């Protein structure tokens, strides 16, 4: 027993000593990395907070967003970086959890002294972070669709590269009417994004002169069973069931829907009705599901400029989902706005964001070209991999939308909705 206690003490000592050595070393290297480039270029590194979901519900998407940001920041630094300074990524896991995100944001701001945070995913996370970043004067870029994300109290310092939840709902309602569906039920996850989309759908459905939505069932995340919720939504056998959630819960709901063996068709956002869902429930089960999503601008130069680089670095296609392209654009937009502002301060960078992102101006697809033109005093218009990134007065973007029908692992585009009709 005595020996054991000694062992423990020694272990603790070693751990403590190890930790403090590591701390001193980190401090030293941190200090070095701040000073060394200063000799070579325009100033110390610029720390940029990156907060993508590496664990939790968003873990399917976060790692590839981080990869996209790393590749992009690498290219930015190779081109000299904004104002001749290198960007340094400080990455923290949001855990797809608002609680964890708050802690992480505080850490990034007070410990790492970041003046901008990019990559927050899911509206619940972004909405938890925004009061903190706004108060600290930190610029925030995210991939979240809930309306409140760009509410007036946050707007000055926040930009989103994700279309709002509204166009999803508009497309769902218009497509459902076109298909001749009359009885519609909604199953919505109990979180800001899904509830926004649910309300926007109901409003548009009424505007189109359709009878009220038959049944709206809100479900909680992580329930032991969704059998009751699905039964309730399918009561009276609606023509169409709209599932507004993420892939894990959509998978469970799909299994329950399939077991219920009804004629009801199913529709949902494309980021939930994705390849992972098909893999989870089987290709035969999702045949005929409708997926609604923004169209990646696969034919545009901004997309092409990044697609091959991303494909060779990760082995997966940039068109799999919307988010790595958005993460790439956020890094480029941030660096270009810093260059235009000749500053890293959140408010000053934010004030230049629309100047470099919106027309008129020379269209650019990467930091190197854009920064060169900015230094020559030219006006630029960044065209991203996720779309034109033209932020409107609310700092929102619009995107072209489409409806796809899932046929096994393939998907067939059925209808196209141009961005101008979706505001």
């Amino acid at each position, binding site marked *: 027993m005595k020996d054991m206690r000694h062992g423990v003490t020694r272990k603790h000592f070693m751990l403590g000593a190890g930790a403090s050595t590591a701390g001193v070393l980190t401090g030293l290297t941190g200090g070095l990395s701040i000073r060394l480039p200063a000799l070579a270029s325009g100033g110390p590194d610029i720390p940029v907070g990156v907060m993508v979901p590496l664990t939790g519900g968003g873990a399917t998407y976060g790692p590839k967003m981080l990869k996209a940001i790393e590749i992009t920041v690498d290219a930015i630094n190779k081109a000299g970086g904004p104002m001749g300074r290198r960007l340094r990524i400080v990455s923290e896991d949001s855990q797809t959890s608002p609680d964890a995100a708050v802690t992480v944001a505080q850490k990034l701001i007070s410990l790492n002294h970041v003046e901008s945070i990019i990559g927050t995913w899911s509206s619940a996370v972004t909405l938890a972070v925004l009061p903190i970043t706004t108060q600290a004067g930190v610029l925030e870029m995210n991939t979240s669709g809930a309306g409140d994300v760009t509410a007036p109290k946050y707007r000055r310092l926040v930009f989103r590269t994700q279309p709002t939840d509204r166009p999803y709902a508009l497309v769902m309602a218009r497509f459902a009417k076109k298909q001749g569906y009359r009885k519609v039920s909604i199953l919505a996850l109990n979180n800001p994004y899904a509830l926004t989309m649910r309300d926007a759908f109901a409003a548009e459905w009424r505007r189109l002169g359709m009878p009220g939505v038959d049944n709206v069932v809100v479900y909680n995340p992580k329930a032991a*069973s969704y059998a009751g919720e699905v039964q309730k939504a399918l009561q009276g056998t609606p023509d169409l069931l709209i599932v507004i959630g993420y892939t894990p819960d959509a998978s469970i709901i799909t299994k329950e829907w399939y*077991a219920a063996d009804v004629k009801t068709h199913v529709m949902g956002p494309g980021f939930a009705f994705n390849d992972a869902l098909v893999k989870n429930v089987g290709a035969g089960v999702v045949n005929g599901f409708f997926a609604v999503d923004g169209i990646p601008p696969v034919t545009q130069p901004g997309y092409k400029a990044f697609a091959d680089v991303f494909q060779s670095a990760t082995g997966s296609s940039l068109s799999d989902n919307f988010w790595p392209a958005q993460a790439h654009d956020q890094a480029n937009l941030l660096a270009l706005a810093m260059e235009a502002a000749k500053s890293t301060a959140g408010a000053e960078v934010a004030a230049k964001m629309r100047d470099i992102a919106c027309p008129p101006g020379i269209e650019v697809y990467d930091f190197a070209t854009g920064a060169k033109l900015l230094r020559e005093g030219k006006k630029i218009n960044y065209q991203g991999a996720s779309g034109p990134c033209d932020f409107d007065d609310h700092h929102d973007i619009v995107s072209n939308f489409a409806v796809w029908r899932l046929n096994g692992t393939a998907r067939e585009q059925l209808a196209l909705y141009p961005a101008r009709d979706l505001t």
Partner: protein
Amino acid sequence: MIATLLQHAVDGIVLGAIMALPAMGLALVWRIAGFPHLAHGSLMTIAAYAAWVAAGSWNLPLPLAVLFGLVISALAGVGMHLGVYRHLAGRPMLNLFIASIGVELFLRYGIIFSFGSDFQTFPLPAERGMHLGPVVVRPLDVILLAAAFAALLGVWWMFRGTQLGRRMRAVSDNPSLARLSAISPARVHLAMWVLVSVLAGASGILLGARDVIAPTMGWDVLLLAFAAAIFGGISNPFGAAIGAFLMGLVSELGILWIPTSYEEGIAFFLIMLVLLVKPRGLFGEAVRA
């Protein structure tokens, strides 16, 4: 309306079955080891992951994969007992309670470290429900119900009809007296941990097969199972199981009239009312001093 009521009643019984197995285990641990076991959920999760690895990566036939999952959860339960809880026996209940939170977190993050936090699914095709008169039942739910009832009967028989059961009751009622009668509490504890781990593991594998496998899947059910056990009477494993079925029924029938997002709230409200009248739960026996 009758068909809808029946359908929701069936869903409620299935939900009850998911909670009944861990609830019985929680009651057994409470009765014999004397503490609320917060790491019970990770026994469910571990079994599901083990069976998933066996079926998905090693391509073992499903029954073998399930067996493997159960063995792993039994080993995990026995490991917790021998590695942690046994050393804290006789200390205040709070020590064991806190230790079990530590075990839960350790195992949860171990799973996230090993398999990632992404969710997984068994290589099972989605299944059509069977039409039984006006109600539709998933074949997997029939297996779940069968497993729950078999476990209920099995534990009943073991408790009432076997020497091991008598010893368990003896140890739980009075450990010193049991020792005087040449009953080894150590063996009884060991047997109890194997039993509750297998019960929890079975429920974890079935839950993973009908929904998805995720690092917190067991933890997410644990609060409900605890509530069910307290509702039925945590000192009585059968009361705990009946509590689980009642709670499942109340939740699923309740959402016919109340918004679904309050489903759990209604169940917990009802439990609160029952406990105000019957503090030991519906079927609780006198708790030992």
